[in-house]
């Protein structure tokens, strides 16, 4: 991976907010907005990986679109899409070994969850509003989604630190949004990661917005990456819409962690194309609409153009993947829909305690009786 030691950002980092300036490493661009490689840059993935990451991004996009329409039809609850951030999410996930590495998610990382092996019916079960959606199957190394912004970061550090202490393999990635980096837990976790040299990666998806609050309002620092200097942790700014640059910097961070060299912070600068979630009204606080935004930043178009130019992708493959993904979505939703029909009052009490106290058992019996007809 190449980095540019400069105060000024590379061209592909188009937005004003995307400037480093405090000595953070800026990752050199690889895949440019027009789908060609930057001069002198090499693709860090082999052909299979290019096809895999492109498929992942396409599937994620289709699932997101369907999620929004399911929500509009009242079939699922509030939904947050990853659309526009697939380069950052999928690119980072590709650098993980899903068998040993763990993801401590925020809530906007669909491609990462898919890459780690989450069955799609679980995702729908979650958004239908059923508790089964929260538990990841054995072997899918992902923590439940995090509602309390930033609270996941100490968990990521603790788990990574625990792996290190027990000499277990495994790198842990904590995902966090730009807004959530203002929380105290982010700083405490970063500081502890520095001290413990835990094999953890802090992956910040800076999508420019935290609901209605722009990135400039979160911090007066020149970048979020700049904050890592205070923890003795190396940090990188990368164009999150350049999936190859994301992958290459993530691969390096994961390798550092695996080699016992400790934590890294990566700030992937991308864009939240859609609303914050299905309850949000972006026109109240920003002018650019989703269509313009995606035309400007789309990481998927970039990669598809590149893969097509190499003969790794074509319209037939695209059509076939789209069709199979729609089938996957429909079938997964059916399974989830059936699963979610099973709802009993006793589920309130499942997994609260290993060994429930007498009083809780009595409460369960009372509520079961109340709803027993």
């Amino acid at each position, binding site marked *: 991976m190449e980095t540019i030691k400069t105060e000024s950002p590379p061209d592909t980092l188009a937005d004003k907010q995307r400037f480093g300036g405090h000595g953070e490493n800026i990752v050199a661009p690889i895949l440019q907005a027009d789908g060609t490689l930057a001069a002198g840059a090499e693709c860090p993935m082999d052909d299979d990986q290019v096809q895999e990451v492109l498929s992942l991004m396409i599937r994620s996009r289709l699932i997101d679109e369907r999620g929004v329409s399911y929500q509009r039809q009242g079939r699922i609850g509030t939904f947050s899409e990853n659309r526009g951030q697939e380069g950052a999410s999928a690119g980072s996930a590709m650098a993980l070994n899903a068998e040993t590495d763990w993801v401590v998610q925020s809530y906007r990382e669909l491609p990462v969850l898919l890459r780690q092996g989450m069955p799609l019916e679980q995702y729908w079960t979650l958004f239908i509003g059923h508790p089964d959606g929260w*538990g990841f199957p054995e072997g899918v190394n992902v923590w439940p989604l995090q509602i*309390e912004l930033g609270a996941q970061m100490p*968990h990521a550090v*603790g*788990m990574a630190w*625990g792996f290190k202490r027990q000499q*277990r393999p495994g790198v842990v990635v904590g995902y966090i949004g730009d807004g959530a980096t203002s929380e105290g*837990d982010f700083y405490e976790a970063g500081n502890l990661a520095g001290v413990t040299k835990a094999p953890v990666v802090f992956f910040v998806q800076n999508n420019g917005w935290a609901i209605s609050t722009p990135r400039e309002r979160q911090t007066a620092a020149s970048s979020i990456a700049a904050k890592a200097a205070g923890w003795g942790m190396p940090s990188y700014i990368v164009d999150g819409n350049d999936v190859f640059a994301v992958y290459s910097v993530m691969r390096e961070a994961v390798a550092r962690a695996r080699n016992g060299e400790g934590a890294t912070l990566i700030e992937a600068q991308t864009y939240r194309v859609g609303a914050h979630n299905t309850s949000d009204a972006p026109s109240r606080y920003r002018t650019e609409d989703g269509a313009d935004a995606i035309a400007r930043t789309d990481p998927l178009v970039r990669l598809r153009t590149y893969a097509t130019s190499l003969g790794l992708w074509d319209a037939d493959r695209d059509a076939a993947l789209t069709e199979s993904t729609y089938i996957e979505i429909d079938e997964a939703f059916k399974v989830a829909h059936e699963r979610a029909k099973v709802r009993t009052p006793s589920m309130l009490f499942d997994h*609260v305690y290993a060994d429930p106290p007498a009083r809780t058992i009595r409460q369960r019996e009372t509520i079961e009786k109340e709803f027993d007809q």
Partner: protein
Amino acid sequence: MTTLTMVEAVRSALMTEMERDDRVMVLGEDVGKLGGVYRATEGLIERFGPDRVFDTPIAEASIIGASVGLAASGVIPVAELQFLGFGHLAFHQVAHQLARLRYRSRGKLTAPVTIRAPFGGGVRALEIHSDAYESMYANVPGLKVVAPATAHDAKGMLLASIRDEDPVLFLEPLRGYRLIKDEVPDGDYTVELGKARIAREGNDITLIAWSGMVPQAERAADTLASEGISAEVIDLRSITPLDVDTLATSVAKTGRAVIIQEGPLSSGFAAEVATTIAEEVFYSLEAPVQRVAGPDTPYPFAAALEDFYLPGQSRILGAARKALSA
């Protein structure tokens, strides 16, 4: 059997369990070389090294938050909060993350974490070092809160807490660290969580207390005994789960109850105990249940005022006499 102080009993439990199970690690502020500000972890770093007895940065949320992650990785963390009053800086990690990890992951991830924290007043400590906040934690589902009153129970319950599959907040009476002294078995034993202890049997009235207030209740029982009144003293030991049966059996027998807590009266844990008694044995009651507690004021930061704040003999005996005369 050896006579140990409360703090020695805590240390003995940590020593015993770290010796027995190498997954156990202690982390917190100044727990290493210093041995903790009250020396509860003294000698551990020499025996087990700085990786298993880890001096953390001063950051409570990440001490608890990292413990959640450590536990998920297979480590068994015993985290020390230097004082319970500073637990608020980690309260979200305790209530929303630690106590719910099993629930929110549907059993995939669990958090067998023990948090040790001194609490309660009586030692002329600084502001925020003396507050008895157990009721706030008692309202957190998924968390056990225990507060032993003897060295024997401290060791046995700390061992039980560390071995518990779920998180436990283990509260240690600041005032009792060196004042409380009793016979403690040398080896390994546990005292079951969720079971109250009848500290003294009696027939006329039940005095209910926990942690640092138990010796106060016993002193009051002595005075009452000298007046020919037989008081039963219940040491709750566990705040949650609450031992409802022991409470109900005792009050059904005596018909009178006084609950003694250190923290402010309103919405304190004594209210929970009183309600439980009313629910379970209302018709056995011969007098209204009495609560003795700190006033609804901040814990005084001026040592001069501490004795006015803390429930002492006059307040406890006054409440007992009121119950007895009804």
